[in-house]
């Protein structure tokens, strides 16, 4: 028995005290900011956006859905920094409250996506055999549909609402991402500790929940962080096409469609500002997601 071969030399001799969790999180954050400046910019944008979404009612005196005939198509001025739209609604208020809508749909999508990706991925990867082959063919079949067209079809079937939107988005993205979890489980289950758990009589359910699930957290965080950007982009595209967030809730995608697009010449501010907010948001989440992926799971680098 050579104990020295298990760990690199030197690490066994000195027992360094493990710093408390708060300090470890802080150190990790500092090193993340230093090594991934673009990810840090993304993180700042994301924090800024969350603050806007929470504080939206305090940041603007106007109601985002209230129609005021006397404000129709007002150009930007000090009262309405981003102008008013064709129904006399304040564009700044709608952009600010639009952040709420975007984040709400994205949060729902990420939760359902993570749930489906982990359950399907762990079950399929751990069980293997016929069950795995069958599940993988179903995943193949669902992934064969072009994403936006499948989403449009699902929304047509179940009707437009924010809840239906994030259930459908979370389901389709979760099915796709279950592949990543399954791949992780396939290599995890070859580890000796899984064999040991089975040898002492651990049930399949126990092994999956207690031993496999915690070890898939890194890929799950990576999947989750990249899903934010995809969900926000998909929500806005579907709202643009009229199958996403139903009126009267302000959605950036819908603000760009319809009248906003038709009136680009007379009143460009209606469609211009939600687009900028949308692009910045997607940019922030992708940057943060990319950086987290590089840090947490270097093998996945450049896959998406």
């Amino acid at each position, binding site marked *: 028995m050579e104990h020295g071969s298990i760990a690199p030399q030197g690490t066994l001799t000195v027992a360094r005290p493990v710093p408390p969790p708060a300090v470890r999180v802080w150190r990790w954050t500092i090193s993340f900011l230093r090594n991934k400046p673009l990810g840090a910019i993304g993180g700042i944008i994301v924090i800024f956006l969350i603050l806007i979404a929470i504080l939206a009612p305090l940041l603007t005196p106007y109601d985002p859905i209230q129609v005021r005939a006397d404000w129709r198509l007002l150009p930007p001025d000090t009262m309405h920094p981003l102008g008013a739209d064709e129904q006399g609604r304040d564009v700044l208020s709608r952009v600010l409250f639009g952040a709420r809508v975007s984040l709400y749909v994205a949060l729902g999508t990420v939760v359902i996506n993570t749930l489906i990706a982990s359950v399907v991925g762990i079950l399929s990867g751990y069980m293997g055999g016929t069950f795995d082959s069958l599940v993988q063919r179903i995943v193949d079949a669902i992934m064969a549909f*072009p994403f936006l067209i499948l989403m449009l079809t699902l929304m047509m079937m179940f009707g437009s609402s924010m809840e239906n939107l994030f259930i459908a988005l979370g389901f389709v993205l979760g099915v796709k991402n279950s592949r990543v979890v399954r791949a992780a489980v396939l290599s995890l289950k070859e580890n000796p500790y899984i064999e040991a758990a089975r040898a002492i009589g651990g049930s399949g359910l126990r092994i999956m929940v207690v031993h496999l699930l915690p070890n898939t957290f890194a890929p799950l965080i990576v999947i989750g962080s990249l899903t934010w950007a995809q969900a926000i982009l998909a929500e806005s595209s579907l709202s643009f096409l009229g199958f996403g967030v139903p009126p009267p809730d302000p959605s950036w995608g819908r603000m760009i469609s319809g009248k906003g697009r038709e009136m680009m010449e007379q009143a460009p501010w209606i469609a211009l500002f939600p687009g900028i907010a949308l692009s910045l948001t997607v940019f922030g989440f992708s940057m943060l997601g990319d950086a987290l992926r590089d840090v947490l799971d270097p093998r996945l680098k450049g896959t998406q």
Partner: protein
Amino acid sequence: MRQYLIRRLLLLIPTIILISILVFSFVRFLPGSVVSILVGDAGASPQEIQTELHRLGLDQPVYAQYFVWFGNVAQGDLGRSLSSNRPVIKDLEQRIPVTVELVLLSLVVALLIGVPIGTISAIRQDSWADYLTRSIAIGGLAIPSFWLATVAIFAFTIAFGWIPPLRYESFFDAPWENFQQFIFPAIILGLYTGAIVMRMMRTSLLEVLRQDYIRTAWSKGLRERTILVRHAMKNSLIPVVTILGIELASLVGRAVVVEPIFALPGLGHYIYTVILARDYPAVQAVNLLLATFTVGINLAVDMSLAYFDPRIRYK
């Protein structure tokens, strides 16, 4: 190679069957009875509904209905559109060439943008040019194409007095008008793919440039140009081709946003129209067609990779 092909083809059978079951069940999940959706329930007596059910074969068990439907599809009968009251296949025949032209032109745009910029980014790694182009690429991936299209049309209108054409011109009747109609949507659709190609080209070229045979080429005293063009780029293009195959399917899907904005009567515009009209047979047909197309593309990509890289065949 033949064994690999046979294995991949056999795996296709369950996938295709599952796709057809999914498409078939699209209409079954709808709220309300199928007959009221398919025939409209305005003032039909129970007797009439019964006849209609029988005529459409809806009084049979669901699995029997599926086999009848699948049999029809296999013979090229994709059903009759509710909105145009013509066979869906006739509608599609006019739409497909438009989307094929748009998607191919977008691929050309994507390659023209992605390959040179990705190459420069890789050979001058970590220079300002590298950082600049990578930032632009990431930005390009973040800007939604429907907004970019909206702003671009606005800008073209002001700068060139260009307006989206009202009538579609076929390439064979009026090549120049046709090109004018397609080039702007193709650029907008292709930018996103171009950014993906660029990232892939950069990563894969960086990897190839670190390999031993490239060092050998350097030590032989070859010029940088020769090493790059003759030795490195050939190999680094393999993953780019793979990603182009996958992106081809995604381009068709994203055409659903761009085609209506630019008034192009393609497949994307068609599916958007039939979804708005709740024209279920047409929605089913287009979904089935596109999913089968994706499966075919994936097979073609796998086959070409196995052809170029023998290691894949023996996995």
